[in-house]
Structures are given as structure tokens and as C-alpha cells.
């Protein structure tokens, strides 16, 4: 037995040498065990690793970051994309409303979201979930998001849910590194290059509005939407959070969100809450609207209404 374990009953110098050998062996084994980590320097450039928080970037920094991201997309997918940094339009606050009498659950909004926002095709990701609800109930427990039959069903109504762009957003409160925040036009955004992927915001959101990149998103090169924004639809890295951003790369340039344009029923209404003449204000003035989970005090900028 003693011969099996030479470290026992040895003079202390030899024992020390054996221990040192054991420690070296252990360290070598550890280095081998964590060797998959060496893929990080291949995927994360030094500039990316050292990049500062979005709010601390100067105009010059931003220009470099955007150019680097564009070059990386070109290198990885062979696609030429334009990544811009659209800022809020001064004085504008966006609001969204859905007419539940019109929505028929066809899911065109989800498909449009998937394509517009360069979502992972593998899981058909989208920022929108549509609940099929039985008539006569507002209890989400009765709802079903995985329906797979012709729509609309006679005894059902359909309720799309996406980020409610809360005025009191719990996701922003909990983020430990301020990687997500609310912008002046009411849109809650994520800096995909600052998020550490702890998913605390996903636990905090009462509307299931946040998504995590469990792996590198997969998008065929010919399906990439080249019109991209830094805080919106650019291709996200693995391991970070993302969410609906009201298509800010479109809406801050005066266009409408992709989900609204795709909707064949006209159920979706989008506009500037500060503009008395906007469509969204017409809805707020003329329809009895409600918000989801009002009791939580999140104060959504997203409204629902029925025609009659």
C-alpha cells in the first residue's frame, strides 16, 4: 500500500516535490478542462471586449463601433449591412394600441417581426406572442399561445402581447449593469454589447417580453435585413438579452413598425402620444382602452381596446 502512495512517510523535501508535481498536474488538467474557453478570443475582439457602455461612447467611438460591427457581419455572413445609431426624435413619445375586435390571430405580425429583426430562424423567434383566448374571459390562464389551426375560431378572440414599453419598467430597475434603459421617446432598449446575460430582467418582466440568446442566432445570409440599428435589429451576439424596441430603426425615421405594416386586419395603431392629431391619440380619446396587469403599476405605453 505504501508503495502505491509514495507521498506518505517521505522526508519533507521529497514530499514537497511530490506535492508540487501533483499541483502542476492538477493545473495542467484544469487548463485542459477549460480549453473550450479559448474560443472566446477568437469570437470576441479586443475592441469588443474593452468597449464602453453605449452612453459613454463619443460620436467618434460610436462610428468605430458601428464600422466594426458592419465588418464583422460582412466577415461572418458575407452580407453588406448598414448599422446606424438612430436617436429619439425630440418631443416624441411613442404609443401602441391593438384593436382586439379586429385581430384574428393570423400571426403575420410574428412573422414580420422575425424577418425585420434578424431573429434566430431555428426557433422562429419573435418579440410577439399571440394568445388565443376564449370569449367571455380575460383570464390569461385560459389562453393558448401554441394554437395550430385555422383562425379565427368562432368562440375565441386573439390578444398579441409584446414589450409594453412601461413607464415604470421593472426590467430596467433590476439590471445590475444598466445594460437596459428607457429612452426619451419611451422605448426601452438593450445595449447588446454591455449585457452580461444574468437574465434578471427576464425574471422581472411581467409580460414575457424579453428573450435570451441561448446560442448564436442562425440566419441565412440571403434573409438578413441589412437595414439595422445598434440598439434594435442588428444581429445579436450569443448570451445576451433582447426585446421589442418598437422597430426604432424605422419609427425614429418616420416609418411604422414592421408588425403594424404586416397586419392584414388593421388591428394595430401606432403613433406619437405627444401629438394630439396622431392615430394613437384618436384611439385613446374615442375608445375605452385598457392595459395589461394594470395593478402592477408598470404603466405600459401599450393599450388594448374593443370596437364595441
Amino acid at each position: 500500500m505504501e508503495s502505491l502512495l509514495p507521498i506518505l512517510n517521505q522526508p519533507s523535501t521529497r514530499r514537497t516535490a511530490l506535492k508540487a508535481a501533483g499541483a502542476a498536474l492538477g493545473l495542467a488538467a484544469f487548463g485542459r478542462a477549460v480549453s473550450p474557453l479559448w474560443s472566446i478570443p477568437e469570437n470576441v475582439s479586443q475592441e469588443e471586449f474593452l468597449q464602453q457602455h453605449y452612453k459613454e461612447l463619443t460620436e467618434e467611438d460610436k462610428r468605430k463601433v458601428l464600422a466594426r460591427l458592419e465588418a464583422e457581419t460582412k466577415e461572418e455572413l458575407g452580407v453588406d449591412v448598414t448599422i446606424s445609431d438612430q436617436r429619439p426624435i425630440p418631443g416624441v413619445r411613442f404609443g401602441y394600441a391593438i384593436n382586439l375586435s379586429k385581430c384574428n390571430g393570423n400571426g403575420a405580425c410574428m412573422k414580420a417581426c422575425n424577418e425585420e429583426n434578424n431573429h434566430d430562424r431555428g426557433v422562429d423567434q419573435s418579440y410577439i406572442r399571440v394568445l388565443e383566448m376564449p370569449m367571455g374571459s380575460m383570464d390569461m390562464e385560459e389562453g393558448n399561445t401554441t394554437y395550430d389551426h385555422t383562425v379565427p375560431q368562432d368562440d375565441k378572440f386573439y390578444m398579441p402581447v409584446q414589450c409594453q414599453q412601461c413607464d415604470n419598467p421593472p426590467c430596467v430597475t433590476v439590471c445590475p449593469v444598466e445594460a437596459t434603459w428607457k429612452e426619451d421617446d419611451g422605448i426601452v432598449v438593450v445595449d447588446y454589447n454591455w449585457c452580461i446575460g444574468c437574465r434578471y430582467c427576464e425574471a422581472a418582466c411581467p409580460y414575457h417580453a424579453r428573450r435570451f440568446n441561448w446560442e448564436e442566432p442562425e440566419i441565412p445570409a440571403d434573409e438578413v435585413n441589412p437595414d439595422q440599428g445598434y440598439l434594435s435589429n442588428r444581429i445579436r451576439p450569443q448570451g445576451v438579452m433582447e426585446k421589442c424596441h418598437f422597430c426604432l430603426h424605422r419609427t425614429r425615421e418616420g416609418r411604422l413598425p414592421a408588425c403594424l405594416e404586416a397586419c392584414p386586419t388593421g388591428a394595430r395603431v401606432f403613433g406619437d402620444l405627444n401629438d394630439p392629431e396622431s392615430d394613437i391619440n384618436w384611439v385613446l380619446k374615442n375608445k375605452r382602452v385598457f392595459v395589461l396587469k394594470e395593478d402592477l403599476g408598470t404603466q405600459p405605453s401599450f393599450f388594448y381596446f374593443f370596437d364595441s
Partner: protein
Amino acid sequence: MSSEITQNVSREDAAHPIRSYPKFLWWGLGEATNGGLLFYLWMFALTAIALVGANAWAVQVADGMILTNMTDHVSWGLYIANFTFCVGLAAGGVMMVIPAYLYDDEEMHKVVIVGEAVAIAAIVMCTLSVVVDLGRPDRFWHLFPIIGRVNFPVSMLTWDVFVLNGYLLINLHIVGYLLYMRFLDRKPNPKWYVPFVFLSIFWAISIHTVTAFLYCGLGGRPFWNTALLAPRFLASAFVSGPAFIILVMRILRITTEYSTPPGPARTLIQIIRVAMTVNLLMFASELFTMFYTGGAHGASARYLLFGSHGHYGLVPWIWTAIVCNLAGTVLFFLPKALERSNIRIVACLLCIVGIWIEKGMGLIVPGFIPSTLHEIVEYAPSLVEWKVTAGIWAFGFLLLTVMLKLIVTVFTHEQSRGGQKS
């Protein structure tokens, strides 16, 4: 810290060969890695498991968290469950400090230092459990003040990072200082440790309270959104910590000459009796509120205990926990049976397993089921998650073993030197 301590070393110890704190630690590491065949087998097995865990984590970082079974619906799983339990263990480890110093119970001191060692190992396990849960561990520096951007004091997670690291430093100081003084055969200067001991009592309560606030502050998760969560965490920490220490003391008694009089064990058992009863009472109170009120507040509890809409994933877990907790509690209330050390070990193990489930899988996962849109997506840990978690436990035990060896060496070393003197 070490320079302060070296200043305190008096001239009368001139004969002592080792006088600086770093040298003491180096000597201690050498002593702590001496042992018999069983010891080396134990350390080898732990190292092997820790390496398997490290490898599984590295693969997870490279290929993505897709290798876990977490989803956008259940976005925290085994890692955060284990984290929550370890915070309790760390807090509970130091609860022993309260009777020892508050009531000046001299006999407790030998147990206290073991408790602090358990706390240190548990805190390291907490930190590891959080790190492995991060999607982007390469961005960890974003959490540091000044170079990163810390959402303090609004985000409870930044509080947690702060209190856990603070707690680690406090306990490292106390254990290191007391051991070093004992090693030098000097009476510890109360100025250098009593304030820290009181700080650590306050701090132990804060780490578990802040961890509970992490969950109970979320309005969108009715299952967690209860003011009773922090008190429940504390009550169960008062059970799992002492139970773990009783087990460690038992192992030390069998494998080393380090033994304590029965007094401290009796104190620990008393603490467990009271804390477990309070814990079960609060659990029952929680269940009443959830089931009597019903609706959204009851949905998670219904899924957890009885299953919901044909999904029963957590039912075996929680009933195992309930049976373990109840059986453990009953044993702790049978003084005659508890006299037998085997029964005592079983009782401690039952409570530890029960609380690991109740505060882990039974608390974190049902918070996500049903989801905020009332979808039911179930969760069971993947092989990678089990490997990583086992690796973290193995590393924790590795640390604890080394610390305990050091403690035992210093204490018995002192005894033998004392013997020579007299």
C-alpha cells in the same frame, strides 16, 4: 490586513520560526495538504469532479446556454437554485457566532471557527453559481465599480454582489486572524476581531435578506412576491447551517483529534428545533394564503404541489422536500433518539436535503411556472447543469477540507506545544 497583523506580533515570540502572516498561510497550505491515503483519495475524487464541472462550464460558455435546459419561460434553474441554498448555508454557518460571542459561550469557539470555514466555502460556491449562470462571463468587469457601470443602489443584484464579497472578506479576516494568533500562541486582541464578529452577525442576516429581496421584489412573479420570503430564508438558514456544522464536527471527530464537548452540539440542536418549526409554520402560512386566495397567486403553488394541466415536473421534488423536512423535524424533537449519533446524522441529512430542494428547485423554478403569460413550460436540469453544479460542490468541499485541515493542525499543534511547555 496582514501587515496590520504582523505589527501585532510581539517580541516575546522571537523564538518562533514563522512570524509573518503570508509565511503562516504558506506553512498552513503545506500542513493542510498532508494526510493519509484516504485523505488523498478524497482530494483526488473532489479534484476530478471539479474538473468535470469546469470542463462542462467551458463548453457551455463556448457553445451557449442552449446546453442547459433553461428557456425563455424558465430562465433560471439549477444554478440559481443552488446559489440560493448556498447563501443560506453561508449565513447559517455564522449563526453560531451569535451564542458564542453574545452569551460569551467559550465552548462554542471551536465550533465557531468551523462555522466560519463553512461560510467561506459556501460563499465561494455562491459566487461560482452566479458566474456559471451568466451568458457573458467575459463581461464580468461590467459589474465592477468605476471601470464598469453598476446600477447601485436600485438593482438588488448589485447589493448581492456587494454583501457576498464583503461577507467573504470579513470571514477570511476573522478566521485568518484567530488561527494566526492561536498559532503564535498569543491571545487574540479583541480590538482586531470582536468588531468584525459583530459585523459578520449583522452581515450574515443581510446576505440572506438581500438574496430574498432579489426575488420577492418582483411584482410580476406572484409566487415570490411575498414579504414572508426573507424571514423564511433566514429560518431555513438557521437549520441548514447548524445541521451542516453538526455533520462536519462529526466527521472531524472520527477522522481527527479535533473534538468538542457536547455543549455546542446541544446549542445547535436547540437552534435547529426552533428554526425548523418556524420555517415549517411560515411555509404552511404561505400555502394557506396561496391556496385560499387562489387565482394567479395559487397557480404556481398548485403546479408545484399537485401539478397543473397535466404537468407534474416538480411534484416529486417538493414532496421529497416536505417528507425530508417533516421527518427531520420529528427526529430533532426526539431527544432519546437524537442521543444516538447515527440518528443525529440522518436527521441532519434529512433537513439539509429537504431545505436544498425547498429553497432551491422548489422555490426558483415554480416562480417561472406558469409563465407571466400563463404558459406552462416545464424544466428539468440538463446533464451539463448537473455536471457544473457537482463541480461547484466538489470545489467547495475541496476548499472546506483544506481549511478544516488547517484549523485542526493549528489547534492540535498548539495543544502539543502547550504540552511541551508544562
